[in-house]
């Protein structure tokens, strides 16, 4: 496992695309958090309330969830690159098992999810400590569980992206399919179905992990929308992650390289 990770790092660390995409992710989050205090709600500037612990963690992970697609695109590029460079083929010839090919990419997914969660933690603490009113240790750690939910969510989107990469092998095609599935096809499929059922669709499940702050208030005003709570979504999300990784392996095993 460790040697697989070391080999993946040899590929990733000198790869500019990898750093550019992660850089965009960090920069976008930073800018949005920076502007956060000037968000106006009901004609009032949110001001320092935006950063108020413990709710800030929920806001932070909700904002970060918009950029999971970016992380997914990164994973698709890393997977499809190896098809277009034919390096998967060469590495299987050189002695790698197909299961190790999948395991290596899964390690990258975990690594990126870990990196993203770490960035959120640092940004959250940074902005929170500087701007939030009434800081106490208890408040700060209050909703930190959302960071764990975000970690699972990032794994989820990236494992779905990985599946599209292994399925389609071409980067442009896989990226489009991933975005179209997440943003268009799944919502259309969900549309005619019963709410009880559609809360278990993969993208819906993943997005339930980081609900929009104030959703509960909206719900009480407009009638409850049915969605899993973050706690409830963790298990189904984990099941989807296993399924997507398993399908990727099945595809790789069944086809010519």
């Amino acid at each position, binding site marked *: 496992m460790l040697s697989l990770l070391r*080999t993946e790092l*040899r590929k990733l660390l000198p790869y500019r695309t990898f750093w550019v995409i992660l850089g965009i992710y960090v920069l976008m989050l930073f800018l949005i958090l920076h502007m956060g205090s000037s968000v106006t709600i009901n004609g009032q500037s949110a001001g320092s309330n935006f950063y108020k612990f413990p709710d800030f963690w929920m806001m932070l992970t909700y904002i970060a969830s918009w950029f999971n697609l970016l992380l997914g695109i990164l994973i698709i590029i890393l997977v499809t690159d190896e098809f277009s460079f034919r390096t998967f*083929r060469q590495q299987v010839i050189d002695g790698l098992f197909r299961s190790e090919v999948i395991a290596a990419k899964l390690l990258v997914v975990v690594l990126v999810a870990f990196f993203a969660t770490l960035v959120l933690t640092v940004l959250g603490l940074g902005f929170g400590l500087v701007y939030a009113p009434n800081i106490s240790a208890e408040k700060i750690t209050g909703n930190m569980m959302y960071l764990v939910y975000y970690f699972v969510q990032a794994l989820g989107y990236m494992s779905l992206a990985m599946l599209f990469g292994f399925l389609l092998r071409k980067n442009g095609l896989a990226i489009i399919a991933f975005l179209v599935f997440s943003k268009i096809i799944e919502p259309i499929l969900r549309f005619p179905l019963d709410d009880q059922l559609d809360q278990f669709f993969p993208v819906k499940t993943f997005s339930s992990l980081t609900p929009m702050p104030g959703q509960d208030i909206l719900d009480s005003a407009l009638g409850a929308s049915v969605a899993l709570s973050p706690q409830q979504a963790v298990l189904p999300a984990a099941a989807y992650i296993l399924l997507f990784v398993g399908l990727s392996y099945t595809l790789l095993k069944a086809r010519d390289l």
Partner: protein
Amino acid sequence: MANVLEIQGLSKNYGSVTALQNLSLQVPQGSIYGLLGPNGSGKTTTLGIVLDVLKASAGTFQWFGQPYTGTVKRSIGAILETPNFYPYLSAYKNLQIAADIKKAPHSDIPQVLEMTGLAARQNSPFRTFSLGMKQRLALASALLGNPEVLVLDEPTNGLDPQGIADVRNLIRNIAAQGKTIILASHLLDEVEKVCTHVAVLQKGILKAEGNVSNILAQQDQVLITVPQPEKALSLLQNLPFVESIKTEREWLQLVLKNGYSSTDINKTLFENGIVASQIMVRKKSLESQFLEIVNK
């Protein structure tokens, strides 16, 4: 001697196209085994299957009499079709990745770069390499970990004459250490110069297999003109070492059995009172031999 690779009844279909049809062959240990055939004859398909990247539609194969596992794989160094590397990484870093996967010591890297003449360019990114240099890097990567068997698919593709000579020398040197080499090529001349054994493929069908000297036998033609062709003809037809005889205008065209030459013909004619006015030896071209084999 034991066989390094045994293939039984291998077939491969791509949809309705049959790329390989019921191929069986054995690669003896220590041989330089040539897979010869025109483009699209199934050479790469065969190698792809035995290297575990293509799925066979039917048939089985064993390396060293065993199924293909991780350890067996790592004792084989292989190039299939194209040199496959990360374009943005240097030659050296690409070889580090390959060495990781082959579980070969990184101390092999300078040595294989030296052997393939790439030491001076080891820190340049792969994408800046010419086709010939990419091919050499693929060869360097195949040599990592000092494998027992080398599988090389068109290894001289894209090389200049000096590069071709270098690679062929390298192959002979490696073979001299008792290693087995499997070489796919569409160049008859290459197989003839380098290989000890050959299998000739066409449209996925095995046309001939055996020692290079048997399959690509140099049966030269001897052409003579004599003043009395009828007499010479009746004499030559009864000679035990004449395989066939044809007349073409004033020429008699003879094909001799192995081990006989134009000298024997000249001597026999002279002893029987016939003096040839012309004797000529015409080498049969490799291409015509090849066409003879595949059109059999």
